[in-house]
Protein backbone atom coordinates (compact mmCIF):
# COMPACT_ATOMS: atom_id res chain seq x y z
CA UNK A 1 0.00 0.00 0.00
CA UNK A 2 1.51 3.38 -1.01
CA UNK A 3 2.18 5.87 1.75
CA UNK A 4 -0.07 8.92 1.63
CA UNK A 5 1.45 11.99 3.20
CA UNK A 6 -0.54 14.17 5.60
CA UNK A 7 -3.92 13.70 7.29
CA UNK A 8 -2.53 10.90 9.44
CA UNK A 9 -5.34 11.25 11.99
CA UNK A 10 -8.00 10.88 9.32
CA UNK A 11 -6.22 7.84 7.88
CA UNK A 12 -6.00 6.25 11.32
CA UNK A 13 -9.66 6.96 12.04
CA UNK A 14 -10.71 5.28 8.81
CA UNK A 15 -8.57 2.23 9.51
CA UNK A 16 -10.00 1.92 13.03
CA UNK A 17 -13.57 2.27 11.81
CA UNK A 18 -13.28 -0.23 8.99
CA UNK A 19 -11.31 -2.80 10.97
CA UNK A 20 -13.77 -2.72 13.89
CA UNK A 21 -16.08 -5.74 14.39
CA UNK A 22 -19.08 -3.62 13.33
CA UNK A 23 -17.91 -1.39 10.48
CA UNK A 24 -20.28 1.43 9.43
CA UNK A 25 -22.44 0.99 6.33
CA UNK A 26 -21.94 4.53 5.04
CA UNK A 27 -18.88 6.71 5.24
CA UNK A 28 -18.19 10.22 3.93
CA UNK A 29 -14.72 11.63 3.23
CA UNK A 30 -14.71 15.38 2.81
CA UNK A 31 -11.84 17.63 1.78
CA UNK A 32 -10.34 19.58 -1.13
CA UNK A 33 -9.52 17.81 -4.41
CA UNK A 34 -6.04 16.40 -5.10
CA UNK A 35 -5.01 15.60 -1.49
CA UNK A 36 -5.10 11.81 -1.70
CA UNK A 37 -8.53 10.82 -0.31
CA UNK A 38 -9.38 8.44 -3.12
CA UNK A 39 -5.85 7.07 -3.46
CA UNK A 40 -5.76 6.26 0.24
CA UNK A 41 -9.20 4.69 0.57
CA UNK A 42 -8.86 2.59 -2.59
CA UNK A 43 -5.40 1.28 -1.74
CA UNK A 44 -6.42 0.59 1.87
CA UNK A 45 -9.55 -1.31 0.81
CA UNK A 46 -7.66 -3.27 -1.85
CA UNK A 47 -5.20 -4.42 0.79
CA UNK A 48 -7.81 -5.04 3.44
CA UNK A 49 -10.58 -6.65 1.37
CA UNK A 50 -8.99 -7.56 -1.96
CA UNK A 51 -9.71 -5.98 -5.34
CA UNK A 52 -12.69 -8.31 -5.95
CA UNK A 53 -14.64 -6.72 -3.11
CA UNK A 54 -14.00 -3.13 -4.10
CA UNK A 55 -16.10 -1.27 -6.67
CA UNK A 56 -15.34 2.29 -7.75
CA UNK A 57 -18.71 3.55 -8.95
CA UNK A 58 -19.35 5.62 -12.01
CA UNK A 59 -20.91 9.04 -11.32
CA UNK A 60 -23.13 8.68 -14.38
CA UNK A 61 -26.80 7.71 -14.36
CA UNK A 62 -26.02 3.98 -14.34
CA UNK A 63 -23.68 4.19 -11.32
CA UNK A 64 -26.26 3.49 -8.59
CA UNK A 65 -27.77 0.54 -10.48
CA UNK A 66 -24.35 -1.05 -11.02
CA UNK A 67 -23.55 -0.52 -7.35
CA UNK A 68 -26.82 -2.21 -6.37
CA UNK A 69 -25.89 -5.23 -8.53
CA UNK A 70 -22.46 -5.31 -6.90
CA UNK A 71 -24.07 -5.31 -3.44
CA UNK A 72 -26.31 -8.24 -4.33
CA UNK A 73 -23.42 -10.72 -4.24
CA UNK A 74 -21.48 -11.91 -1.21
CA UNK A 75 -17.90 -10.80 -0.45
CA UNK A 76 -15.31 -12.96 -2.22
CA UNK A 77 -12.39 -12.73 0.20
CA UNK A 78 -13.03 -9.87 2.61
CA UNK A 79 -15.53 -9.45 5.42
CA UNK A 80 -17.64 -6.97 3.44
CA UNK A 81 -17.89 -5.36 -0.01
CA UNK A 82 -17.11 -1.67 -0.48
CA UNK A 83 -18.35 0.84 -3.03
CA UNK A 84 -16.42 4.08 -3.50
CA UNK A 85 -18.13 7.06 -5.14
CA UNK A 86 -15.52 9.67 -6.02
CA UNK A 87 -16.59 13.28 -6.67
CA UNK A 88 -20.02 12.44 -5.29
CA UNK A 89 -20.84 16.14 -4.89
CA UNK A 90 -20.89 16.34 -8.70
CA UNK A 91 -23.74 13.86 -8.95
CA UNK A 92 -26.94 15.29 -10.39
CA UNK A 93 -29.99 15.43 -8.13
CA UNK A 94 -31.72 12.43 -9.76
CA UNK A 95 -28.49 10.45 -9.39
CA UNK A 96 -28.27 11.46 -5.74
CA UNK A 97 -31.85 10.24 -5.29
CA UNK A 98 -30.84 6.88 -6.75
CA UNK A 99 -27.91 6.67 -4.34
CA UNK A 100 -30.16 7.71 -1.43
CA UNK A 101 -32.17 4.55 -1.95
CA UNK A 102 -29.01 2.43 -1.68
CA UNK A 103 -27.67 4.37 1.31
CA UNK A 104 -31.00 4.05 3.18
CA UNK A 105 -31.12 0.31 2.65
CA UNK A 106 -27.46 -0.66 2.43
CA UNK A 107 -27.46 -4.48 2.43
CA UNK A 108 -25.63 -6.40 5.15
CA UNK A 109 -21.95 -6.82 4.43
CA UNK A 110 -21.73 -3.67 2.27
CA UNK A 111 -20.17 -0.29 2.75
CA UNK A 112 -20.83 2.83 0.67
CA UNK A 113 -18.08 5.47 0.78
CA UNK A 114 -18.71 8.93 -0.68
CA UNK A 115 -15.78 11.24 -1.43
CA UNK A 116 -16.71 14.92 -1.72
CA UNK A 117 -15.02 18.28 -1.73
CA UNK A 118 -18.12 20.13 -0.50
CA UNK A 119 -20.75 18.25 1.46
CA UNK A 120 -23.19 21.14 1.03
CA UNK A 121 -23.76 19.99 -2.54
CA UNK A 122 -25.35 16.74 -1.39
CA UNK A 123 -29.11 16.76 -0.95
CA UNK A 124 -30.01 16.88 2.78
CA UNK A 125 -31.68 13.43 2.94
CA UNK A 126 -28.59 11.81 1.43
CA UNK A 127 -26.20 13.73 3.69
CA UNK A 128 -28.22 12.65 6.74
CA UNK A 129 -27.39 9.00 5.97
CA UNK A 130 -23.71 9.58 6.75
CA UNK A 131 -23.10 9.30 10.47
CA UNK A 132 -19.33 9.13 10.03
CA UNK A 133 -17.88 12.14 8.24
CA UNK A 134 -14.10 12.27 8.09
CA UNK A 135 -12.49 15.57 7.19
CA UNK A 136 -9.28 15.81 5.12
CA UNK A 137 -7.22 18.98 4.93
CA UNK A 138 -4.64 20.46 2.59
CA UNK A 139 -1.06 19.43 3.38
CA UNK A 140 1.44 21.61 5.19
CA UNK A 141 4.67 22.73 3.45
CA UNK A 142 6.62 20.08 5.33
CA UNK A 143 4.19 17.35 4.33
CA UNK A 144 4.31 18.52 0.75
CA UNK A 145 8.10 18.38 0.66
CA UNK A 146 7.95 14.83 2.08
CA UNK A 147 5.36 13.86 -0.50
CA UNK A 148 6.92 15.36 -3.63
CA UNK A 149 10.43 14.02 -3.90
CA UNK A 150 11.48 15.58 -7.19
CA UNK A 151 10.15 19.09 -7.52
CA UNK A 152 11.24 20.74 -10.76
CA UNK A 153 8.93 23.74 -10.49
CA UNK A 154 8.93 25.10 -6.92
CA UNK A 155 6.80 28.09 -7.96
CA UNK A 156 4.02 25.76 -9.05
CA UNK A 157 4.08 23.94 -5.72
CA UNK A 158 3.25 27.20 -3.99
CA UNK A 159 0.34 27.81 -6.40
CA UNK A 160 -1.02 24.33 -5.68
CA UNK A 161 -1.76 25.39 -2.11
CA UNK A 162 -1.06 22.14 -0.27
CA UNK A 163 -2.53 19.79 -2.89
CA UNK A 164 0.20 17.43 -4.11
CA UNK A 165 -2.08 15.69 -6.59
CA UNK A 166 -2.68 18.98 -8.33
CA UNK A 167 1.07 19.46 -8.83
CA UNK A 168 1.34 15.96 -10.30
CA UNK A 169 -1.59 16.64 -12.64
CA UNK A 170 -0.10 19.92 -13.78
CA UNK A 171 3.20 18.24 -14.57
CA UNK A 172 1.46 15.62 -16.77
CA UNK A 173 1.51 15.75 -20.60
CA UNK A 174 -1.76 17.52 -21.49
CA UNK A 175 -1.21 20.30 -18.99
CA UNK A 176 2.39 20.84 -20.07
CA UNK A 177 1.06 21.13 -23.63
CA UNK A 178 -1.42 23.73 -22.35
CA UNK A 179 1.39 25.65 -20.66
CA UNK A 180 3.49 25.71 -23.84
CA UNK A 181 0.45 26.88 -25.82
CA UNK A 182 -0.19 29.77 -23.43
CA UNK A 183 3.48 30.78 -23.55
CA UNK A 184 3.43 30.66 -27.36
CA UNK A 185 0.28 32.77 -27.56
CA UNK A 186 1.69 35.29 -25.09
CA UNK A 187 4.79 35.60 -27.23
CA UNK A 188 2.66 36.58 -30.24
CA UNK A 189 1.92 33.25 -31.94
CA UNK A 190 -1.37 33.40 -33.85
CA UNK A 191 -1.87 29.73 -34.65
CA UNK A 192 -5.30 28.29 -34.02
CA UNK A 193 -4.87 25.42 -31.66
CA UNK A 194 -6.96 24.17 -28.77
CA UNK A 195 -4.93 22.16 -26.23
CA UNK A 196 -6.25 18.73 -25.22
CA UNK A 197 -6.69 19.80 -21.60
CA UNK A 198 -9.09 22.55 -22.73
CA UNK A 199 -10.90 20.34 -25.25
CA UNK A 200 -11.51 17.73 -22.58
CA UNK A 201 -13.67 19.92 -20.36
CA UNK A 202 -16.27 22.08 -21.94
CA UNK A 203 -18.79 22.89 -19.27
CA UNK A 204 -19.86 21.60 -15.90
CA UNK A 205 -18.02 21.39 -12.60
CA UNK A 206 -14.74 19.60 -12.85
CA UNK A 207 -11.62 19.58 -10.74
CA UNK A 208 -9.48 19.98 -13.85
CA UNK A 209 -10.64 23.60 -14.01
CA UNK A 210 -8.35 24.31 -11.05
CA UNK A 211 -5.44 22.73 -12.88
CA UNK A 212 -6.11 24.69 -16.08
CA UNK A 213 -6.40 27.91 -14.13
CA UNK A 214 -3.12 27.36 -12.26
CA UNK A 215 -1.24 26.35 -15.42
CA UNK A 216 -2.41 29.45 -17.31
CA UNK A 217 -1.64 31.70 -14.34
CA UNK A 218 1.85 30.29 -13.93
CA UNK A 219 2.50 30.67 -17.68
CA UNK A 220 1.46 34.32 -17.53
CA UNK A 221 3.81 34.89 -14.58
CA UNK A 222 6.58 33.01 -16.39
CA UNK A 223 6.17 35.21 -19.47
CA UNK A 224 6.76 38.26 -17.23
CA UNK A 225 3.64 39.91 -18.71
CA UNK A 226 5.31 40.03 -22.13
CA UNK A 227 2.05 40.99 -23.80
CA UNK A 228 0.06 42.92 -21.23
CA UNK A 229 -3.27 42.82 -23.01
CA UNK A 230 -3.13 39.07 -23.62
CA UNK A 231 -1.79 38.42 -20.12
CA UNK A 232 -4.76 40.28 -18.70
CA UNK A 233 -7.06 38.18 -20.88
CA UNK A 234 -5.56 34.92 -19.70
CA UNK A 235 -5.80 35.98 -16.06
CA UNK A 236 -9.43 36.86 -16.68
CA UNK A 237 -9.88 33.43 -18.33
CA UNK A 238 -8.46 31.76 -15.19
CA UNK A 239 -10.86 33.70 -12.97
CA UNK A 240 -13.92 33.13 -15.19
CA UNK A 241 -13.64 29.35 -15.48
CA UNK A 242 -13.27 29.01 -11.70
CA UNK A 243 -15.91 31.60 -10.78
CA UNK A 244 -18.55 30.18 -13.11
CA UNK A 245 -18.20 26.38 -13.26
CA UNK A 246 -20.76 26.07 -16.05
CA UNK A 247 -18.80 28.41 -18.33
CA UNK A 248 -17.65 26.74 -21.52
CA UNK A 249 -13.87 26.54 -21.22
CA UNK A 250 -13.28 26.24 -24.98
CA UNK A 251 -15.22 29.40 -25.81
CA UNK A 252 -13.48 31.40 -23.09
CA UNK A 253 -10.16 30.04 -24.31
CA UNK A 254 -10.93 31.48 -27.75
CA UNK A 255 -11.77 34.81 -26.15
CA UNK A 256 -8.38 34.90 -24.44
CA UNK A 257 -6.53 33.80 -27.59
CA UNK A 258 -8.11 36.15 -30.12
CA UNK A 259 -7.40 39.32 -28.21
CA UNK A 260 -4.42 41.32 -29.43
Amino acid at each position, binding site marked *: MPKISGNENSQREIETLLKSPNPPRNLLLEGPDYIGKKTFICSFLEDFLGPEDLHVADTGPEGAREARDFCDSHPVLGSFRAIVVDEADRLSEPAQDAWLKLCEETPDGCLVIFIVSDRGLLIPPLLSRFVHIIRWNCLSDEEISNCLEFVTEPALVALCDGRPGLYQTIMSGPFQELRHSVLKILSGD*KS*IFIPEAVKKIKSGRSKERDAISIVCRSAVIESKLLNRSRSRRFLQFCA*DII*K*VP*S*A*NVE*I*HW*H*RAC*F*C*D
Partner: protein
Amino acid sequence: MAKLTLISGEEEFLVERAAFQEAASSLAKTVYQFKLPSQLSNYLQESSTIPKDNLSRVFILWGADDVPLLSSFDDDVIVVSKKKLSHASCRKSYDFPKLKSFDDKNEYLGWIIKEGENFNIDLARVAVGLFVNSRKSLRKIFSEIRKISVLVPSGVVTPEDVKAVLCFSAELTPKEVLDAVCEGRPVKAFAFLDKLQENNDETGWVIAFLQRHIIQMLLIERLRSSGLSGQEIAEKIGVHPFVYRKMVEPKVGLWSQDSLLKSLDTLCNADLLHKVGNSSAGLMLEAEIVRLSEEALNDKRGRS
Protein backbone atom coordinates in the same frame (compact mmCIF):
# COMPACT_ATOMS: atom_id res chain seq x y z
CA MET B 1 -36.68 19.95 -87.77
CA ALA B 2 -36.74 19.94 -83.95
CA LYS B 3 -39.22 22.09 -81.99
CA LEU B 4 -37.39 24.28 -79.48
CA THR B 5 -38.76 25.48 -76.14
CA LEU B 6 -36.73 27.82 -73.99
CA ILE B 7 -37.27 27.95 -70.23
CA SER B 8 -35.33 30.34 -68.06
CA GLY B 9 -35.46 31.80 -64.56
CA GLU B 10 -34.21 31.49 -61.02
CA GLU B 11 -37.29 29.89 -59.48
CA GLU B 12 -35.99 26.35 -59.73
CA PHE B 13 -39.26 24.70 -58.82
CA LEU B 14 -41.27 26.56 -61.46
CA VAL B 15 -38.61 26.04 -64.12
CA GLU B 16 -38.44 22.32 -63.41
CA ARG B 17 -42.20 21.95 -63.36
CA ALA B 18 -42.58 23.82 -66.66
CA ALA B 19 -39.93 21.63 -68.29
CA PHE B 20 -41.66 18.41 -67.28
CA GLN B 21 -45.09 19.78 -68.27
CA GLU B 22 -43.75 20.67 -71.70
CA ALA B 23 -42.22 17.22 -72.04
CA ALA B 24 -45.51 15.59 -71.05
CA SER B 25 -47.60 17.73 -73.41
CA SER B 26 -45.40 16.81 -76.36
CA LEU B 27 -46.77 13.24 -76.09
CA ALA B 28 -43.34 11.93 -76.98
CA LYS B 29 -42.50 8.30 -76.35
CA THR B 30 -39.09 8.87 -74.75
CA VAL B 31 -37.72 11.66 -72.57
CA TYR B 32 -33.96 12.12 -72.48
CA GLN B 33 -32.38 14.41 -69.88
CA PHE B 34 -28.86 15.82 -70.11
CA LYS B 35 -26.92 18.14 -67.84
CA LEU B 36 -24.90 20.68 -69.75
CA PRO B 37 -22.06 21.24 -70.34
CA SER B 38 -20.80 17.89 -68.94
CA GLN B 39 -23.19 15.74 -71.00
CA LEU B 40 -23.21 17.84 -74.16
CA SER B 41 -21.42 15.21 -76.25
CA ASN B 42 -23.90 12.53 -75.08
CA TYR B 43 -26.78 14.76 -76.19
CA LEU B 44 -25.23 15.47 -79.58
CA GLN B 45 -24.61 11.78 -80.15
CA GLU B 46 -28.13 10.77 -79.07
CA SER B 47 -29.88 13.51 -81.05
CA SER B 48 -27.99 12.67 -84.22
CA THR B 49 -29.19 9.05 -84.23
CA ILE B 50 -32.40 8.13 -86.03
CA PRO B 51 -35.30 7.66 -83.53
CA LYS B 52 -36.39 4.06 -83.03
CA ASP B 53 -39.61 3.22 -84.92
CA ASN B 54 -39.71 6.86 -85.99
CA LEU B 55 -41.31 7.83 -82.66
CA SER B 56 -40.80 11.35 -81.40
CA ARG B 57 -38.44 12.13 -78.55
CA VAL B 58 -37.99 14.92 -76.02
CA PHE B 59 -34.59 16.20 -74.98
CA ILE B 60 -34.46 18.24 -71.76
CA LEU B 61 -31.18 20.05 -71.47
CA TRP B 62 -30.56 21.34 -67.92
CA GLY B 63 -28.24 24.22 -67.07
CA ALA B 64 -27.48 25.34 -70.62
CA ASP B 65 -25.57 28.57 -71.20
CA ASP B 66 -26.49 28.62 -74.87
CA VAL B 67 -28.74 26.74 -77.29
CA PRO B 68 -26.76 23.77 -78.61
CA LEU B 69 -27.05 22.21 -82.08
CA LEU B 70 -30.62 21.05 -82.57
CA SER B 71 -31.67 17.62 -83.69
CA SER B 72 -32.50 17.32 -87.39
CA PHE B 73 -35.41 14.95 -86.66
CA ASP B 74 -38.91 15.77 -85.50
CA ASP B 75 -37.95 15.94 -81.82
CA ASP B 76 -38.78 18.35 -79.00
CA VAL B 77 -35.84 20.10 -77.40
CA ILE B 78 -36.39 21.90 -74.09
CA VAL B 79 -33.48 24.05 -73.07
CA VAL B 80 -33.43 25.08 -69.41
CA SER B 81 -31.13 27.86 -68.32
CA LYS B 82 -30.79 30.46 -65.59
CA LYS B 83 -30.41 33.40 -67.95
CA LYS B 84 -32.86 34.29 -70.69
CA LEU B 85 -31.88 32.84 -74.10
CA SER B 86 -33.13 33.55 -77.57
CA HIS B 87 -33.00 31.50 -80.76
CA ALA B 88 -34.42 31.88 -84.27
CA SER B 89 -36.21 28.54 -84.24
CA CYS B 90 -37.72 28.99 -80.76
CA ARG B 91 -41.36 27.93 -80.72
CA LYS B 92 -42.23 28.71 -77.07
CA SER B 93 -40.39 30.43 -74.25
CA TYR B 94 -41.06 30.81 -70.54
CA ASP B 95 -39.32 32.97 -67.95
CA PHE B 96 -39.63 32.52 -64.19
CA PRO B 97 -37.76 35.32 -62.42
CA LYS B 98 -37.34 35.18 -58.65
CA LEU B 99 -40.59 36.09 -56.92
CA LYS B 100 -40.49 39.23 -54.82
CA SER B 101 -41.31 39.05 -51.14
CA PHE B 102 -41.52 42.72 -50.19
CA ASP B 103 -44.02 43.36 -47.43
CA ASP B 104 -46.28 45.53 -49.60
CA LYS B 105 -45.97 43.38 -52.72
CA ASN B 106 -45.46 39.79 -51.82
CA GLU B 107 -45.65 37.82 -55.07
CA TYR B 108 -45.50 34.53 -53.20
CA LEU B 109 -48.98 35.19 -51.79
CA GLY B 110 -50.40 35.71 -55.27
CA TRP B 111 -48.71 32.55 -56.47
CA ILE B 112 -50.15 30.54 -53.54
CA ILE B 113 -53.68 31.77 -54.25
CA LYS B 114 -53.31 30.98 -57.96
CA GLU B 115 -52.01 27.49 -57.23
CA GLY B 116 -54.98 26.98 -54.90
CA GLU B 117 -57.34 27.89 -57.75
CA ASN B 118 -55.74 25.19 -59.88
CA PHE B 119 -56.73 22.71 -57.17
CA ASN B 120 -60.17 24.27 -56.82
CA ILE B 121 -59.55 25.58 -53.30
CA ASP B 122 -59.49 29.16 -51.99
CA LEU B 123 -56.27 29.78 -50.09
CA ALA B 124 -56.75 33.53 -49.58
CA ARG B 125 -57.18 33.17 -45.81
CA VAL B 126 -54.17 30.93 -45.27
CA ALA B 127 -51.72 32.23 -47.87
CA VAL B 128 -49.73 34.27 -45.34
CA GLY B 129 -49.56 31.31 -42.96
CA LEU B 130 -48.29 29.03 -45.71
CA PHE B 131 -45.67 31.56 -46.71
CA VAL B 132 -44.46 32.07 -43.12
CA ASN B 133 -44.29 28.34 -42.54
CA SER B 134 -42.40 27.33 -45.67
CA ARG B 135 -40.78 30.68 -46.49
CA LYS B 136 -39.60 31.04 -50.08
CA SER B 137 -39.42 27.35 -50.83
CA LEU B 138 -42.06 26.96 -53.56
CA ARG B 139 -41.50 23.23 -53.60
CA LYS B 140 -42.49 22.99 -49.92
CA ILE B 141 -45.44 25.32 -50.35
CA PHE B 142 -46.64 23.33 -53.34
CA SER B 143 -46.43 20.07 -51.44
CA GLU B 144 -48.47 21.64 -48.62
CA ILE B 145 -51.08 22.89 -51.10
CA ARG B 146 -51.36 19.46 -52.67
CA LYS B 147 -51.82 17.93 -49.22
CA ILE B 148 -54.47 20.51 -48.29
CA SER B 149 -56.32 19.91 -51.57
CA VAL B 150 -56.57 16.21 -50.79
CA LEU B 151 -57.51 16.51 -47.14
CA VAL B 152 -59.70 19.62 -47.14
CA PRO B 153 -62.98 19.70 -49.08
CA SER B 154 -63.03 22.16 -51.95
CA GLY B 155 -64.02 25.72 -51.20
CA VAL B 156 -62.58 28.25 -48.76
CA VAL B 157 -59.74 26.85 -46.68
CA THR B 158 -59.67 28.17 -43.10
CA PRO B 159 -56.65 28.40 -40.77
CA GLU B 160 -58.20 25.67 -38.59
CA ASP B 161 -58.28 23.30 -41.61
CA VAL B 162 -54.67 24.02 -42.38
CA LYS B 163 -53.32 23.74 -38.83
CA ALA B 164 -54.46 20.14 -38.65
CA VAL B 165 -52.58 19.07 -41.76
CA LEU B 166 -49.68 21.47 -42.04
CA CYS B 167 -46.16 20.19 -41.67
CA PHE B 168 -44.41 22.77 -39.51
CA SER B 169 -41.22 22.74 -41.47
CA ALA B 170 -39.89 26.09 -40.32
CA GLU B 171 -39.02 25.25 -36.72
CA LEU B 172 -37.54 28.26 -34.99
CA THR B 173 -33.95 28.05 -33.77
CA PRO B 174 -31.31 30.69 -32.93
CA LYS B 175 -30.13 30.25 -36.53
CA GLU B 176 -33.08 32.42 -37.63
CA VAL B 177 -31.96 35.12 -35.19
CA LEU B 178 -28.43 34.89 -36.55
CA ASP B 179 -29.62 35.00 -40.18
CA ALA B 180 -31.65 38.13 -39.44
CA VAL B 181 -28.59 39.71 -37.80
CA CYS B 182 -26.50 38.87 -40.87
CA GLU B 183 -29.19 40.39 -43.12
CA GLY B 184 -28.95 43.57 -41.04
CA ARG B 185 -32.56 43.38 -39.83
CA PRO B 186 -32.69 43.88 -36.05
CA VAL B 187 -36.50 44.08 -35.91
CA LYS B 188 -36.79 40.68 -37.56
CA ALA B 189 -34.12 39.30 -35.21
CA PHE B 190 -36.06 40.57 -32.19
CA ALA B 191 -39.27 39.06 -33.53
CA PHE B 192 -37.57 35.66 -33.76
CA LEU B 193 -35.94 36.14 -30.36
CA ASP B 194 -39.30 36.93 -28.74
CA LYS B 195 -40.90 33.95 -30.43
CA LEU B 196 -38.06 31.74 -29.23
CA GLN B 197 -38.45 32.97 -25.66
CA GLU B 198 -42.19 32.31 -25.58
CA ASN B 199 -42.03 28.96 -23.83
CA ASN B 200 -38.64 28.91 -22.13
CA ASP B 201 -35.79 31.29 -21.43
CA GLU B 202 -33.51 30.55 -24.37
CA THR B 203 -31.05 33.41 -23.76
CA GLY B 204 -28.21 30.96 -23.07
CA TRP B 205 -28.89 29.05 -26.30
CA VAL B 206 -28.90 32.23 -28.39
CA ILE B 207 -25.73 33.52 -26.72
CA ALA B 208 -23.94 30.21 -27.32
CA PHE B 209 -25.06 30.17 -30.98
CA LEU B 210 -23.83 33.71 -31.58
CA GLN B 211 -20.57 33.00 -29.74
CA ARG B 212 -19.88 30.02 -31.98
CA HIS B 213 -20.63 32.05 -35.09
CA ILE B 214 -18.36 34.89 -34.01
CA ILE B 215 -15.54 32.47 -33.17
CA GLN B 216 -15.99 30.79 -36.56
CA MET B 217 -15.76 34.16 -38.31
CA LEU B 218 -12.62 35.08 -36.36
CA LEU B 219 -11.04 31.74 -37.21
CA ILE B 220 -11.87 32.19 -40.89
CA GLU B 221 -10.45 35.72 -40.93
CA ARG B 222 -7.24 34.44 -39.38
CA LEU B 223 -7.00 31.47 -41.77
CA ARG B 224 -7.68 33.71 -44.76
CA SER B 225 -4.96 36.10 -43.70
CA SER B 226 -2.54 33.17 -43.63
CA GLY B 227 -3.36 32.56 -47.31
CA LEU B 228 -5.41 29.35 -47.12
CA SER B 229 -7.93 28.48 -49.83
CA GLY B 230 -11.66 28.00 -49.20
CA GLN B 231 -11.27 24.22 -49.32
CA GLU B 232 -8.48 24.27 -46.72
CA ILE B 233 -10.39 26.65 -44.47
CA ALA B 234 -13.44 24.40 -44.62
CA GLU B 235 -11.27 21.46 -43.56
CA LYS B 236 -9.71 23.42 -40.71
CA ILE B 237 -13.01 24.60 -39.26
CA GLY B 238 -14.56 21.17 -39.73
CA VAL B 239 -17.36 21.84 -42.21
CA HIS B 240 -18.01 20.32 -45.62
CA PRO B 241 -16.59 22.49 -48.44
CA PHE B 242 -20.05 22.80 -49.99
CA VAL B 243 -21.57 23.96 -46.70
CA TYR B 244 -18.68 26.38 -46.29
CA ARG B 245 -19.18 27.82 -49.78
CA LYS B 246 -22.94 28.10 -49.55
CA MET B 247 -23.62 28.94 -45.91
CA VAL B 248 -20.49 30.19 -44.20
CA GLU B 249 -18.55 32.13 -46.81
CA PRO B 250 -21.37 34.61 -47.66
CA LYS B 251 -21.32 35.72 -44.02
CA VAL B 252 -17.57 36.32 -43.92
CA GLY B 253 -16.54 39.98 -43.93
CA LEU B 254 -19.81 41.39 -42.61
CA TRP B 255 -18.00 42.61 -39.53
CA SER B 256 -14.50 43.93 -39.00
CA GLN B 257 -11.97 42.06 -36.88
CA ASP B 258 -12.29 44.65 -34.09
CA SER B 259 -16.04 44.39 -34.15
CA LEU B 260 -15.90 40.58 -33.93
CA LEU B 261 -13.51 40.76 -30.98
CA LYS B 262 -15.73 43.29 -29.24
CA SER B 263 -18.73 41.07 -29.86
CA LEU B 264 -16.99 37.95 -28.52
CA ASP B 265 -16.05 39.89 -25.42
CA THR B 266 -19.58 41.14 -24.83
CA LEU B 267 -21.15 37.74 -25.49
CA CYS B 268 -18.73 36.01 -23.13
CA ASN B 269 -19.57 38.53 -20.40
CA ALA B 270 -23.28 38.08 -21.09
CA ASP B 271 -22.81 34.30 -20.93
CA LEU B 272 -21.12 34.51 -17.52
CA LEU B 273 -23.82 36.85 -16.20
CA HIS B 274 -26.57 34.62 -17.54
CA LYS B 275 -25.03 31.56 -15.92
CA VAL B 276 -24.96 33.20 -12.52
CA GLY B 277 -28.59 34.26 -12.91
CA ASN B 278 -28.10 37.96 -13.69
CA SER B 279 -31.00 39.18 -15.83
CA SER B 280 -28.94 41.93 -17.48
CA ALA B 281 -27.49 39.21 -19.75
CA GLY B 282 -30.66 39.41 -21.87
CA LEU B 283 -30.27 43.17 -22.27
CA MET B 284 -26.62 42.77 -23.25
CA LEU B 285 -27.63 40.19 -25.85
CA GLU B 286 -30.29 42.50 -27.33
CA ALA B 287 -27.85 45.42 -27.48
CA GLU B 288 -25.33 43.19 -29.24
CA ILE B 289 -27.95 42.03 -31.75
CA VAL B 290 -28.71 45.65 -32.62
CA ARG B 291 -25.02 46.55 -32.94
CA LEU B 292 -24.17 43.54 -35.12
CA SER B 293 -27.26 44.03 -37.32
CA GLU B 294 -26.44 47.68 -37.92
CA GLU B 295 -22.87 46.87 -38.84
CA ALA B 296 -23.99 44.13 -41.20
CA LEU B 297 -26.43 46.56 -42.83
CA ASN B 298 -23.75 49.22 -43.20
CA ASP B 299 -21.45 46.66 -44.76
CA LYS B 300 -24.15 45.67 -47.26
CA ARG B 301 -24.81 49.30 -48.14
CA GLY B 302 -21.08 49.82 -48.59
CA ARG B 303 -20.85 46.82 -50.91
CA SER B 304 -23.81 47.86 -53.01
